[in-house]
């Protein structure tokens, strides 16, 4: 009872997707009676994130849950924490192998590149030969991996397919429209999260391509769910962030209390969310889904 767990993410403050993580973590904390804290580098700088992990370790929690956004950077601090005897669980980014390398108990998540690759191969099966990747955080190394995976899955060059859309919705919308008008042969569009998906939906509705252009997106949110429902979006990739935050808290609590630990990593995704089976997703999108 009353253990303290700290979850460290790589996301900047304003990244809306991480809310689900926070909510799930709080829920799990409440259920097992543990104290949970969420921390992140305000600007999304992974260097700062490394400091936060060492800081977390210095405050002697009963467990650390962290993403492995850049294994090179984070290996040192995580290994130090492990060496101090703090159990660590890796979530979200990274791979099971990397998690094992740094001495973490287990890995729960969906490797970004692989998810992108799977999506790309699916799109290829659906007959797509070219695409536009709307990257709203082009300087962020983690999210960009999705585009790279998708391009590799399709077997095309990433170069001119990715745009630096910025985070302003009007600019995203108009940049997508401008790109599509200058490159009319584009067959698909991929957005990397709710921030870019919403304006892209607007863009397609306005230039009449909604429903006819192959549109996939990562992660869920209110607008995305609506888009899937009305057919604008073909599929959304749900990595079920709820599990990525809920499970580690439960597992760590029980590990601390009873010494029990699952024998395997947990793959929380990728799951393709399509028009079918949307009801729950719709209700909790952005909150628990």
């Amino acid at each position, binding site marked *: 009872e009353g253990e303290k767990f700290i979850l460290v993410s790589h996301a900047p403050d304003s990244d*809306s997707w991480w809310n689900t993580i926070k909510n799930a973590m709080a829920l799990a904390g409440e259920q097992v009676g543990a104290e949970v804290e969420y921390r992140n580098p305000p600007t999304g700088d992974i260097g700062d994130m490394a400091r936060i992990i060492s800081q977390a370790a210095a405050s002697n929690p009963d467990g650390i849950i962290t993403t492995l956004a850049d294994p090179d950077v984070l290996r040192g601090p995580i290994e130090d924490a492990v060496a101090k005897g703090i159990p660590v669980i890796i979530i979200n980014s990274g791979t099971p192998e990397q998690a094992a390398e740094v001495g973490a108990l287990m890995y729960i998540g969906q490797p970004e590149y692989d998810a992108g690759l799977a999506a790309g191969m699916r799109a290829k099966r659906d007959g797509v030969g070219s695409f536009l990747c709307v990257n709203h955080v082009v300087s962020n190394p983690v999210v960009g991996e999705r585009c790279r995976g998708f391009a590799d899955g399709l077997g095309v060059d990433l170069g001119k397919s990715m745009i630096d859309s910025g985070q302003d919705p009007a600019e995203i919308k108009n940049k997508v429209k401008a790109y599509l*008008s200058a490159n009319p042969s584009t067959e698909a569009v991929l957005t990397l999260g709710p921030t870019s998906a919403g304006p892209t939906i607007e863009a397609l509705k306005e230039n009449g391509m909604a429903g006819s252009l192959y549109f996939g997106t990562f992660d869920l949110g209110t607008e995305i769910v609506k888009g899937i429902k009305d057919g604008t979006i073909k599929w959304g990739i749900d990595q079920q962030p709820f599990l990525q935050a809920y499970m580690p808290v439960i597992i760590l609590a029980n590990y601390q209390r009873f010494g029990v630990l699952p024998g395997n990593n947990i793959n929380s995704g990728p799951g393709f969310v399509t028009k079918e089976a949307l009801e729950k997703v719709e209700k909790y999108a952005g909150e628990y889904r």
Partner: protein
Amino acid sequence: MTATKAEPDPSPAPRSGAPEKDERVKEISGFRKAMIRPELGSICGTILVFVFFLLVARDSGMFSAEGVLNWGVVSAQFAIIAAGACLLMIAGEFDLSVGSMIGFSGIVIALMSVTWDFPMWVAIITAFIVAVAIGWLNGYLVIRTGLPSFIVTLAFLYILRGLTIFAAIATTNKTIIGGIRDKAEGDWLAALFGGKILNGLFVWLADLGLIGKFVAGSRAGQPIVDGVPMLIVWALILIVFAHVLLTRTQFGNWIYASGGDAQAARYTGVPVDRVKILMFMFTAFCATVFATCQVMEFGSAAADRGLLKEFEAIISVVIGGALLTGGYGSVIGAALGALIFGVVQQGLFFAGVESSLFRVFLGGILLLAVILNTYIRRIITGER
């Protein structure tokens, strides 16, 4: 003698009591004189930019009705915040919290209307009141503490962004709040920010064949451009308002004076503090107009909206020929600066430039525009 700022003081001091022709001064032609205005550089810049994109991206649809609307909307966005930033900069201060204010106002509207279920007009008016009050606080702190506005508004950049994120998460567990469109349906005030006007005109133009129609998809048969977004209308209103205020009214005179030399202005009885605080409030007002239009258009508010917009506002204003040190500038110039900025940004996409180079171009054009600005002013005025 007081040191005069070198910039716009090009002509020689005519000798006192010697109104007859001065043999020591080469004549300055009327044409040249007409050209010595702050917005000159941005006029040249605008022409250059349009010529460039006409050559490079003519066939990309950039100059079709749809394309024009495309960069028009982006430019209008810049222009809305540039109008406020311009007056504030002429009054000798600047505001780095504009971007955070945009995010903040949007979240206030969303929280009030969606989460707490107030009527949309109440939400919008509340957002305006709160934002303008924060603008006042900004100004008050700058005046009272005598600290540079750079520092005070930098603090508010952080504080407002933090409050926005905190408020959104604490009340709704989300940082994107959707569902605003449904709420705004039929609201009188929301229509002022979200709708489009002149719908009929565009249908008529499309029927005449002057603008295209959708040939397929869900909206087949409708004109591709079906109206002028209120965003553009607001941009025009704010530009005209700010321009008239600045050049034609007593208050405008005071704005120039406050930025030109606050001490001197105070001596002649100009209420400098009030002018500056009002300009901070106007900047906050413009940021809220921006936020409201955006929220109405996209139907959602997010805590990360408006990131770095303060720089884009300042860049537009400076491209428009204003002095960063205050006392000199023009709203028309700032509006042209916004236009250049918008056209370049969107034009790069029409022209198919490698997207990761986008920022490089942005920086390069900013630099070129400002250097061009200074250079043109200098060759025309003969200043060294």
